[in-house]
Structures are given as structure tokens and as C-alpha cells.
């Protein structure tokens, strides 16, 4: 089967953006539907890819055999490569492994949901908005599929511009401050990453007789790194640069301060993508690039980074408790939840890493859902202050029960997906650092506190003065809104009950990750 499926997935939103560009901007409904159509095609293609990845190919995943480790392909599949800048050995090279396909599926599904969720709230400059969203999707998909460091960097930067526009044009009252902060933070990290990528490539080139072939190729770089060929100083410096770029994106404490502003000001769908996918780009970068390429540095910094992760988990949770704004609360809870992801990465254990990746997916789904829910109430009240709400359960019963469900998932209720990821990280890190693991798991109590307390304040009791003033505007969630929420809710239940659906994809990536850092598999 020689269909360039990865390029097809990548090209679909791009073609969509071009098609939108020629539709007159007055045809709002047509623009919305076309954008949704293209995002759904990308989603369908990525579903096909996931199934093909699981059931066909060099070694299939045995989804039904939970206990026995499948004979797993360590390598990337569906790779495509075309020379782009031959003089430097830079290629247009794509490929996916189990981690990539899951991230791809997360991206395409959340993009479709976000576009659908924008039908109501976005009424101004719809064309520019939808084009931005599709270009954003191109960048995100590209990051997850690129196997050339330069190509990866380019997609990484491509993500930046549409998000800058989405927050800056369609955002809230303080949007310009927020979007500038977002861009500047991200750019500082990513430009230093460029220096590191170039320095790494040059180190590779100079030890290969001055030939640039493979100097930007992820696979050859990783093989070279696995042989311990990169000098320790280079590893330390390059790791710092890459880590900075990724840690800002995740965001790890203390690089998180852009996040609450960006989330608060972004339009609902922007927040969904920001939390659901953009933060995952950072974690993906750590797993895929920063650690495997510079294992010596990763070991050197592992402990400080574990400590930073725990600080993020605790700090995010504590700060969430006192947030007066619904979106800010969810944003700070993201800092806490993403702390579990980085913790799972840096303890170098297969269980914890799989938990971390599962947590990435869960966080994307659950937090994406929470932002959608906040968006629903904001549409009706144009306010997000928790203190002004109250009694929503009576006024919007379906909405409130949906909200409650996502709250429980986010708090880590066993049986729902949020629990599994954090639990696996806990189990995995317990063997390495019991104290740290216990400290982080106690935070689950804090999480329950801030989430349930928030829910109690907005949903129960008498209908608040403010909400009563809105009268008939306070309608329950409509069909479009439910259409965005129900798929996410189903995913939460399914992943909660059958986490192996995801975990089986991750065994191979986890093994190669641990092989790269030189830790015996099974830990």
C-alpha cells in the first residue's frame, strides 16, 4: 500500500484553508461548513491511519491480549521522505509510531470539535478564523509526524502564528496582552531550540566526514545519540535549549505564567486547542526529542525536573482553589495535570511513561471538555466569575450534569480515564521515588477539592441574582453544544474502562524511549 497517507492527512486542512480563501467572506454558513468538512476528512483519514497502524503492517498490535507484550515495531511506519534542501541533508520526512498516531487522532478530533464549537460564538471575521484554525491544524499534525529536525522546527513555528491571531483577534478584552505574552514566551524558547538543532546537526556532520547526510534526520541522530557519540557539553547545552522550548509549551513550573492569560483571553475553541493539543506539543517534544537525543543530559537533569514537576502539580492545584474565574481555574488545573505528564517522563519508567502519555490524551479530552463547558455558560452570561453563578443545576439540568461528569473525570474518579493516567504515573514513579509519588498523589485530594467546590458553587443552591437577571437567555445546552461534548464524554468512559486500547500503542514508544535513556525495560 503506497498511498502517502501522512501527507494526505497533512494536506487536507491545508487544502481546506486554500478553498476557504476563495469563498467570499459573506458566505458565513458555507465557510463554517467547509471548514468542518475538511477537518472531518482529516479526522476520518487519521482514524483510518490508526486502524491501519493497529491491524496491518509489519507487526500488528494484538489489542485483545492485555497481559502479553505484543511483538512490537520499534520503528516508525508509513515514512515518506523527499529531499528538500539537499546541500544540508534536510528532508521532508514524515513517519509515525504509536505515540504519533494517538497524538494525531487527538489533534484531528479536537480540531473538528473546536470548529463545530465555534459555529455559534464566532460571528465576526469567520473566514479568517476558520483559515487560522485549519492552518493551525496543519502545524500541529506536522509536529507530530515530522522525522526531520528542521521540518519539525518549521511546523513548531507554524503553530505559533495562527494561535497568535486566534487569541489576538477573537479573544477577550485583554487579548492583545495575552497573545503577545504567549508569542514572546514561546518564541524565546523555540529560537534557542533552533540554535540547538543546528549545533547538534553540525556535531553530527563534523563526525561524519563533513557530510550533511542524516544530520537533521531524527532516526540517524537518535541512533548516533544511542551510541553515546554526542559530547556531554553539547548534550547539556542543547538539552537546556530544547527543554526550555518544550517546558514553556507544556508549561512546566516556573514557565507557566503565560498560560492563564492565554487561556482566559482565548475564544473557547482556542482554549480547547491550546489545552488539548498545544500543551501536548511540549510534552511530545520532551519524549520524542529532548530526552532520546541527549540521554546524558536527561539523566543529569532528571532529579531537578522531577522536583519541578511535583512543584507544578502541587502549586497548580493550590492556586486553582482560589481562582475566581472559571477559565483561570481550569487553566491552573492544567498546570497541575501536566505536572503528572512531566513527572511520568522524567522518572524513566515504562509504566510511568505510558501513564504520562495516557494522561496527555486524557487531559486533552477532559480539559478540552471543561473549556467547552465554560464556553457554553459564557455564551449565555458573558461572564465567567464563579461568585456570580449559582443554581445552574436547576436552570440548565443537562448542561450541569455534563459539567459534573467532566469534573469527576478531571478529579480522577476511578472508572473514568483521568484516573488511569495519574494512577500509572503514580505506580511507575513509586519505584523510583516513593516520597515524590506519594506527595503527588495527595494532590488528587486537592484536585477533588477545587473542582468539586467550584462545581458546588456554580451548580447548586438557589439561582443567583446575576443569573436570574438573564431570564430566558439561560437556556440549556443546545444540540450543537451537546454534539461537541458527547464524543468527548464517550471517550472518557471508554478510555477509563479500556485503557489498554491506548496503552498497547504505547509499549513500543515506551521501550524505545527507555532504550534511548539506557534504562532496563520493565521498570
Amino acid at each position, binding site marked *: 500500500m503506497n498511498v502517502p497517507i501522512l501527507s494526505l492527512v497533512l494536506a487536507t486542512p491545508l487544502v481546506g484553508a486554500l478553498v476557504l480563501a476563495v469563498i467570499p467572506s459573506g458566505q458565513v454558513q458555507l465557510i463554517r461548513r467547509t471548514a468542518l468538512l475538511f477537518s472531518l476528512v482529516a479526522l476520518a483519514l487519521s482514524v483510518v491511519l490508526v486502524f491501519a497502524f493497529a491491524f496491518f503492517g509489519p507487526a500488528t498490535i494484538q489489542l485483545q491480549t492485555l497481559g502479553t507484550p505484543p511483538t512490537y515495531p520499534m520503528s516508525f511506519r508509513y515514512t515518506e521522505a523527499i529531499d*528538500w*534542501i*539537499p*546541500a*544540508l541533508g534536510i528532508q521532508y520526512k514524515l513517519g509515525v509510531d504509536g505515540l504519533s498516531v494517538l497524538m494525531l487522532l487527538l489533534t484531528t478530533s479536537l480540531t473538528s470539535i473546536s470548529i463545530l464549537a465555534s459555529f455559534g460564538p464566532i460571528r465576526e*471575521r469567520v473566514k479568517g478564523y476558520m483559515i487560522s484554525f485549519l492552518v493551525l491544524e496543519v502545524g500541529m499534525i506536522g509536529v507530530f509526524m515530522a522525522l526531520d529536525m528542521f521540518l519539525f*522546527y*518549521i511546523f513548531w*513555528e*507554524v503553530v*505559533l*502564528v495562527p494561535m*497568535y*491571531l486566534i487569541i*489576538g*483577534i477573537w479573544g477577550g478584552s485583554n*487579548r*492583545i496582552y495575552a*497573545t*503577545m505574552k504567549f*508569542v*514572546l514566551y514561546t*518564541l*524565546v524558547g523555540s*529560537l*534557542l531550540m*533552533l*540554535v540547538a538543532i*543546528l*549545533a547538534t*546537526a*553540525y556535531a553530527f556532520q*563534523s563526525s561524519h566526514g563533513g557530510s550533511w547526510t542524516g544530520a537533521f534526520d531524527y532516526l540517524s541522530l537518535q541512533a548516533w545519540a544511542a551510541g553515546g557519540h554526542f559530547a556531554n557539553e553539547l548534550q547539556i547545552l542543547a538539552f537546556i535549549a530544547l527543554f526550555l522550548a518544550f517546558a514553556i509549551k507544556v508549561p512546566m513550573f516556573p514557565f507557566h505564567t503565560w498560560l492563564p492569560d492565554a487561556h482566559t483571553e482565548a475564544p473557547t475553541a482556542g482554549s480547547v486547542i491550546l489545552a488539548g493539543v498545544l500543551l501536548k506539543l511540549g510534552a511530545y517534544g520532551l519524549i520524542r526529542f529532548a530526552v532520546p537525543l541527549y540521554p546524558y543530559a536527561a539523566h543529569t537533569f532528571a532529579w531537578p525536573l522531577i522536583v519541578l514537576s511535583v512543584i507544578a502539580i502541587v502549586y497548580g492545584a493550590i492556586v486553582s482553589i482560589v481562582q475566581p474565574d472559571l477559565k483561570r481555574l481550569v487553566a491552573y488545573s492544567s498546570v497541575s495535570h501536566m505536572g503528572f505528564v512531566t513527572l511520568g517522563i522524567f522518572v524513566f519508567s515504562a509504566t510511568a511513561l505510558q501513564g504520562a502519555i495516557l494522561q496527555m490524551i486524557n487531559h486533552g479530552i477532559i480539559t478540552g471538555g471543561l473549556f467547552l463547558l465554560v464556553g457554553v455558560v459564557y455564551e449565555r452570561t458573558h461572564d465567567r466569575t464563579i461568585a456570580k453563578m449559582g443554581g445552574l443545576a436547576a436552570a440548565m439540568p443537562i448542561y450541569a450534569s455534563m459539567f459534573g461528569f467532566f469534573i469527576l473525570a478531571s478529579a480522577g474518579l476511578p472508572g473514568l480515564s483521568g484516573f488511569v493516567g495519574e494512577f500509572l504515573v503514580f505506580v511507575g514513579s513509586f519505584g523510583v521515588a516513593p516520597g515524590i509519588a506519594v506527595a503527588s498523589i495527595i494532590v488528587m485530594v486537592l484536585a477533588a477539592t477545587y473542582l468539586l467546590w467550584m462545581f458546588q458553587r456554580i451548580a447548586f443552591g438557589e439561582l443567583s441574582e446575576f443569573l436570574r437577571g438573564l431570564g430566558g437567555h439561560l437556556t440549556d445546552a443546545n444540540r450543537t453544544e451537546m454534539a461537541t461534548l458527547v464524543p468527548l464524554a464517550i471517550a472518557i468512559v471508554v478510555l477509563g474502562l479500556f485503557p489498554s486500547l491506548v496503552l498497547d500503542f504505547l509499549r513500543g514508544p515506551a521501550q524505545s524511549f527507555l532504550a534511548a535513556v539506557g534504562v532496563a525495560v520493565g521498570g
Partner: protein
Amino acid sequence: MNWSDLGTIAPVVASVMVAAAVLIVDLVQPGNRRTATATALGGLAVVAAIVLSQAGRSESAFGGSYSLDNLTVFLDILFVAIAAMTILFATDYLQPRDLPIAEFAAVLIFAVTGAMLVAASTDLLVLFVALELMVLPGYMLAGFARRDPYSTEGAIKYFLLGSFSSAILLFGLAYVWGLTGTTRVDGVAAALAKVAAGGTLAPGLAMGLAFMSAGVAFKMAAVPFHYWTPDAYQGSPTPVTAYLSVGPKVGAFAIALRLFVGALGPLKADWLPVVIVLAAVTMTLGNLVAISQDNVKRMLAYSSIAHTGYILVGLAAYAGGQHSGLAAVLFYGAAYTFMNMGAFAVVAALQKRPGVSSQIATFAGLGRRDPWLGALMALFLLSLTGIPPLAGFWAKAYVILAAVQGGGWLTVLAVVAMVNAAAAAFYYLRVVVYMYMREPAEELAPSSPGRLFRAGLAIAGVGTLVFGLFPAILTAATNAAAVFGG
């Protein structure tokens, strides 16, 4: 001299003839803008064809004072493109202000002839004369809007500091000539090679070299020799600013290549620290001051100072022993030409109606008012920021790659450059914020640029985009051009 020398310098001859032809056409048909413009553009096309026909040749003329190699061809093409774009941008600006296009085009083509001669000169005296031919018309262009006091002020400042720096450069040349006994670049290089091989550097020669370097730094607007730039750029008619920001700057880098690489090549280990410091200071100061500007022309003026700093990184990498630094300098020069001229051109388009200021507030709501103009401006600004996949990104990437290859302090310089690039995003994107995220105080009419103007914008836009998507097209040329003299 023999007759074949004339064939070697054919582009320069042709360029002078085009300038003369424009003047003659204007004499025959006074005030006919259309024919004057057509003559100038057609003539430039002929010059470009002649230059291209010389590609691949490597020879010298007039006793080794003019050298034709791939570097000459590359820079000549760039200069012709700069001249052509400037004329296209000037059409819309000059007419409403009732300023003559023929004189403008003729003066401009003379300036560009000087630049072409600079690119080819391998003799210190020819270099100086060529330089003067390049900058003198520049002063006239800066003061072209005679009735505008700002234009006059800018021109006078530009003239005074420009003459001053020329004098410094000449002073340095005189010392070098006196102490090496030759004005030929390769002769100077041979004399300095002896010094590098263990001889002592005579104090007078060192002083001469220092003066020469200061003169060149003036011309390329490197800090602390940059003070003329903001006033000259802000006061000049905007299409002239577009030209001044690229033409003389690329010209100054051409001098740097011929002089530093050709003549001072043997001493490069000595001037490496100087260039590193110059580059770091230039980009940092340019960016810091640009951040606080509310006038887009002035902001772009300071940003052009910052870009001088980035280009100097390539030169520093060369001094650090990385020949790829030269190709990076050339790539940067070409990419910068398209994106920077484009950005100034959009400012010029807004100022088509006299009286429109270049304050940032003018840009409010541009994205809605003039969607194409807004999108192009965003493209140029993103490219100047260094966002892939645009030309400006590759320019930075190549410069950084060369610096990283050098290692040591050059790596530190690379990091400084990237931190600077991130800071620069603030002021570039601020314009985008105004264009797309702020509502204008008063509703202005769309600026509806003319056909020629749009053609110029298209050239700049296509250059920025195509060199971004397919940088290999340009690197083939820069790599060939970087193999010369030193």
C-alpha cells in the same frame, strides 16, 4: 586598457547608459511619466540580461581593479532588482506629490551603478570612487521631496554623516596605501599576510585599518556608527527609504566582502572579536530602541540596524574560519532585500495620499480595509521576525548555522542573535496587532495602489515566499557567489 575590458564592465556601462537614456527621454518628452518609467524599467531589464550573460565568468579588467566573478553577478542582479522595485514603488508616491519620476529614476540608477561598481572593485581607490557614486545620489534621493522639511532635514543629516564617514574611510585607505605601497586588494592582502605570518603590524597600518573599518561600519549602520539612520530613513520619501534601507546597506556589505575578506583576510583572527562585539551590540541596541518606536518607518529603521547585526554574525563566522558564513551573508542580504523593501512599500502605499503619517495608528484596521495590503505586510513582518517557512527564517538559520559551526564565542553570539530575534517579534507583531486587532480611530479609504506598485509588491512578496519555501534556489547562487578572492 584593452577593448575586452569594456566587455567585462558591460553591466556598469549599460547601467550608466540607461540612466542617461531616461534623462534624454525626459528632455524629449518632458513630464511624460509613462515613457520615463518604461525606459527605466526596460533599461534595467537589459542590464539584468547583460549581467546574467556574464554568469560563470571569472576575469578582471583594468589592471585588476575591476573583478568579474560570481559575487559580482549575484550582487549586480540584486542591485538591479532593488532599483526596479524602488521605481515601481515610487510611481504611486511621486505622482500625487507632483515630483518628477524621470529625475528620480535617473538618480537612482546612477546610485545603483555605483553599487554595482562597488561589488566588483578590487582596488581601494576604485572602491572609494564607486562608493561615492553610490552614496551621493542617495543624498539627493533622501531630499527628493524638496518642500517637505523632514525630507530636507533627513537628507542633510544623511549627507553630513555620510561625508564624514567617507572621509574617515578615505583617511584609512590613504594610510593603508602609504604603508603597503599598493591600492590593489590582493596587494594589500599579500602585505598583510606577511604581518600575519609573524611580522609586526606597523601602528600606522593598524590605524589605517581601524579607520577603514569604522568607515564601513558607518555605511552599514552598525552601532555605534548608526546615528544617521533613523532620521535619514524617517525623513526620506518612503520609496526612497525602502531603497536606502537595502541598496546602500547591501553595498556596504559588498565593501565588507571585498575589503575584509579580500584585503584583510589574512588578519581575520584579529578582527574576529571586533566583529563579534559589533554584531552583538548592533542587533541588541537596534532591537531595544525599535521596541519603543511609534512610527513604523522609524521602527523599521531601527530594525534595519538590528538586521545589520544579524548579517554581521555571518561575517563573524567567516572570520572564525567558516567559509559558509559568506554564503550566509549573501543569503541574508537577498532575503532582507525582498522582505524589508516590501515592508517599506506597504508604508508607502498607505502614504499614497499626501498627509498620511507613518505612525503605527495608521495601520489600525488595515487588515479589514485593505485585506491584500494587510496580508502582505503581515507576510513581510513575519519574515523579518524569522518565522518559517519564509525567506527571513532561512536567512537567520544559515547565519546561525555558520556561527554554530565556528563554535566558542560564535555560539554565544548565535544565542544572543536568537534572543534578539525573539525580542524583535514584539515590535513586528505590534504592527500586526494594529492591522488586525485594533479598530481605527477614523475610517480611512482603502489606498488602492496602482498597477506598477502592485507589481513591485508582488515581486517582494513572491521573493519572500518562494525563497522561504524553496531556499535551495537561492543557496545555489549564494554558494557559487561566495567562492571568490579570500
